[in-house]
């Protein structure tokens, strides 16, 4: 009976999980490289279900992330929308790529997103002084194969479409 419904709630559940992971406590030295969980999960669902998860979803989740992180309303929303746009324009090609190539492309996409994040932070005055802002993008790109496999398993087992 679960296969008949489109099970879109699974997508929202994973986003809730991503939000949770993005604020959960971590050891201090790992905080610099905190993966961009929201971006990772969003990328998977945009690639898998481009007709369901799009920029509107990305924007709404971004707003929630803004409230959660106490950043300016719209900052994360803008960045997630940007990522979704890039992934959507590339998604025909990305789906054909082998995993490592996907990771490489995503490294560039996330890196760009982090750069925009850096600019926006600089506008509001809290400017990180180092090049460490690319670290989360790198960690996220390395995590992509695992996240992708995990979510694909969930996706197929629960028949989300």
């Amino acid at each position, binding site marked *: 009976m679960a296969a008949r419904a489109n099970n879109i709630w699974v997508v929202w559940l994973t986003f809730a999980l991503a*939000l*949770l992971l*993005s*604020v*959960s*406590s971590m050891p*201090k030295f790992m*905080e*610099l490289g*905190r993966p961009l969980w929201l971006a990772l999960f969003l990328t998977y669902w945009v690639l898998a279900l481009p007709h369901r998860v*799009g*920029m*509107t979803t990305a*924007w709404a989740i*971004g*707003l*929630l992330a803004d*409230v*959660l*992180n*106490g*950043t*300016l*309303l*719209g*900052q994360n*929303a*803008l960045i997630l*929308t*940007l990522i979704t*746009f890039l992934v959507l324009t590339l998604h025909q090609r990305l789906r054909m790529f082998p995993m490592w190539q996907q990771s490489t492309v995503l490294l560039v996409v996330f890196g760009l997103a982090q750069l925009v994040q850096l600019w*926006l*932070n600089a506008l*509001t*005055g*809290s*400017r*990180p*002084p180092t090049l460490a802002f690319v670290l989360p993008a790198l960690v996220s790109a390395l995590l992509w194969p695992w996240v992708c496999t995990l979510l694909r398993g969930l996706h197929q087992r629960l028949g989300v479409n």
Partner: protein
Amino acid sequence: MRLLVFTVLSAALMVVDARFILLQPLRAQLGLIVEPVYWVGRLPVRVWESATQELSTRNELAAENEKLKAEQLMMQRRLQKLAALTEQNVRLRELLNSAALVDDEVLATELIGIDPNPFTHRILIDKGEKDGVVLGQPVLDARGLMGQVVEVMPYTSRVLLLTDTTHSIPVQVNRNGLRAIASGTGNPERLELRHVADTADIKEGDLLVSSGLGQRFPAGYPVAMVSEVIHDSGQPFAIVRAVPTATLNRSRYMLLVFTDPRTPEERATESAQAQEALDREILQQAQPAQPAVDAPVAPANPPEAAQ
């Protein structure tokens, strides 16, 4: 096309959020989701802590109990002295005719989350608008000032710590009253004093206390300890670094300070009025018995009104 729409929308939101207070109610309401998320996010830490507590042996508990008792004894000794000193302070201030120091009210609060961005020093505490927390309220731990509230949500609030790069606090050297401004550096163990003259009397080990000049923090709370003073002839000012006395990255329980919102003048007039009323009362009681006695001279700031 849609990208354009959302980009413009986000940009507009950001500008409105940064420049106006229009979005504050919306933010506060959305803030309701924050607490459960952070609560679940800290669940592993909580479980770990309670597990270690459950599994700690009787000996360890007894040892901790001993330690706490000893600590309490020390505190009590200091408190005994403090009562006398407070009394003396009030009397001396009376002689000087200056506004008395008022003991601030506090509210205990617990840390529930840390900002995920490692470049900002902000924390989340478990008291919010419903507990009477206001914007700009100072936060202390057992050892000194920690920071101020920058965002109030219904049941939680966000606190900007002293060491954030966007934070500065007016301070005074406790030894001689030299004023300075301590700015955050982004390093949780360091503050920097800005624009301190090369000839200023400040040295390693000096205690910096809040001066209250910014009208945001109450005066007299410890802020930092000077750790090094560098006199570089190539620089226009001395480089002074200090270590915050509060354990900014370790404290779990904190105090929110409710300072008196009245200005010193208002406080002085009110206490004077209270004293007048008291004098009149005394006079009325004294009159039937000894009508010839003089009215006691009213000091500007009596200890009764200052409590």
